[in-house]
């Protein structure tokens, strides 16, 4: 091959680079390892982490069972090793699956249109906020303090440098739902969007209908965020929202120390041209057969560049495919039953503990630890191979001695009894 090019050594391939940019040293990276050594390295790292513990952490990342078929499908080379489906004729597999994904997200959320995925729930939030600003021509954002604290931090990072005022409003210390009066106070004629989460960070379900009415009365859009997608199997869908921004990790996506996950944005039909991210549409091929392709791409960076709706290019396609397979497997009946199991488990434990908030909850709740500190309880639980709840004072200083606990279908009765005991209940 070098002969063909007319060179005699590989080094000549970059001989045209200026001397000062060439690297003459050797990279300080140990020489190549065999497959066995690599597997062993990661196996050992895995053992240094908590292993096969029962886990009562939620807070945006949930321990749900992952059906075997999910990995079977996403391991197929045709899905795993293909690029973004720009060449429709040889990407119909991916395109069809995304079309089904978009459809199921719409069915679940009650929205008209859903995109093909965002990086995760946290980045979907600022993208939804910017979308609302483009739609309304307004500049301010009002966000509930019950939205995931890290999502709010990401919103802050994205908006700060564009000079967008973001105002937080309070929750009601009794119910754990957002405080409607506090919300009313921060809304004004410059509010583009009210952002709420339901079930919220405390696991409490918000009255989205009422909140939507109040937001709309002020000419603002309602952006509804969800982190626990399984709740959609049981709870009234957020159809009163204008934009839904969510995280699908619960749909057979492993916790994986926080990623890769898959976010989505869904919205009312009339806002589709302001939607960020890829969209797949149905059309026909030259023989008149049904076919799918990426569409409405003029919203995106590769065409509209600095005027695009977002800079997103690579998204989370394969992870969204996991969610697609999960939704297909569980289906109409399974998703409901799964959600009901989560509800039953959480209420089994929740009703035995001293819950901080009275609002209706799905599979997470805030428990007061009483005279003990959260760390004492969690330390004791670790002795039973149980990872306890999340200390809330980290994000809410006013909620000392309280933890956020989550019970999914994976929580066994025995482990929940152990948790109750550790709390002294």
């Amino acid at each position, binding site marked *: 091959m070098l002969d063909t090019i007319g060179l005699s050594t590989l080094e000549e391939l970059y001989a045209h680079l200026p001397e000062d940019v060439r690297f003459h040293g050797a990279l300080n990276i140990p020489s190549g390892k065999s497959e066995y050594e690599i597997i062993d390295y990661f196996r050992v790292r895995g053992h240094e982490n908590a292993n096969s513990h029962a886990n009562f952490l939620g807070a945006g990342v949930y321990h749900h069972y992952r059906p075997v078929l999910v990995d079977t499908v996403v391991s197929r080379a045709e899905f795993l090793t293909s690029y973004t489906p720009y060449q429709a004729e040889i990407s119909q597999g991916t395109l069809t699956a995304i079309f089904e994904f978009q459809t199921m997200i719409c069915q679940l959320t009650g929205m008209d249109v859903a995109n093909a995925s965002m990086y995760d729930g946290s980045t979907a939030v600022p993208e939804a906020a910017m979308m609302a600003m483009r739609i309304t021509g307004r500049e301010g954002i009002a966000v509930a303090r019950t939205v995931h604290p890290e999502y709010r931090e990401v919103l802050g990072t994205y908006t700060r440098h564009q000079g967008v005022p973001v105002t937080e409003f309070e929750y009601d210390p009794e119910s754990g739902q957002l405080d409607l009066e506090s919300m009313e106070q921060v809304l004004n004629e410059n509010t583009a969007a009210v952002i709420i989460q339901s079930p919220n960070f405390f696991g409490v379900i918000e009255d989205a209908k009422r909140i939507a009415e109040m937001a709309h009365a002020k000419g603002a859009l309602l952006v509804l965020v969800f982190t626990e997608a399984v709740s959609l199997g049981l709870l009234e869908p957020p159809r009163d929202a204008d934009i839904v921004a969510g995280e699908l990790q619960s749909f057979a996506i492993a916790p994986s120390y926080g990623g890769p996950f898959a976010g989505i944005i869904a919205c009312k039909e009339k806002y589709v041209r302001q939607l960020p991210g890829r969209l797949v549409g149905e059309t026909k091929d030259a023989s008149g057969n049904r076919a799918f392709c990426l569409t409405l*791409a*003029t919203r995106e960076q590769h*065409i*509209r560049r600095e*005027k695009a709706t977002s800079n997103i290019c690579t998204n989370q396609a394969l992870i969204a495919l996991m969610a697609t397979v999960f939704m297909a497997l569980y289906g109409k009946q399974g998703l409901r039953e799964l959600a009901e199991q989560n509800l039953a488990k959480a209420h089994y434990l929740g009703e035995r503990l001293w819950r901080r908030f009275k609002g209706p909850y799905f599979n997470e709740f805030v428990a007061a630890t009483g005279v003990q500190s959260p760390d004492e309880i969690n330390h004791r639980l670790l002795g039973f191979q149980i990872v306890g709840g999340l200390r809330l004072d980290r994000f809410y200083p006013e909620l000392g001695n309280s933890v956020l606990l989550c019970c999914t279908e994976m929580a066994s009765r025995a482990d929940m009894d152990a948790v109750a005991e550790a709390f002294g209940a």
Partner: protein
Amino acid sequence: MDPEDLRYTKEHEWVRVEGDTGTIGITFHAQKELGDIVYVDLPKPGTLLQQHKTIGSVESVKAVSDIYTPVSGEVVEVNGSLAESPEILNTDPYGSGWLVKIRLSEPGEAGKLLTAAEYHAFVGTESS
């Protein structure tokens, strides 16, 4: 090909002046460059437009092109059929593919734009 009774801009728009009303559109050349047009974004009636400012855009599958108004004034009518059938911009850019009608605020502006012959010459130099 480019009608004699219209005036043109270097951004490939045309205007037809009738009394105090100007009808604007994009040229044959513009639609040909874009290819199959799939979407047109136009201002609402009542919008005040300033000459040479962007007032909307035309989109093909893989490109977006801003529309600059050749004349100033108030939008009095928008071509509603473009929403359903954007393809008429390809088939009849000087007729049923018009974009908006404007009540002219500066009637003198149109006369200073390119004539069909000047526009034709301009397109020739641009593509060579």
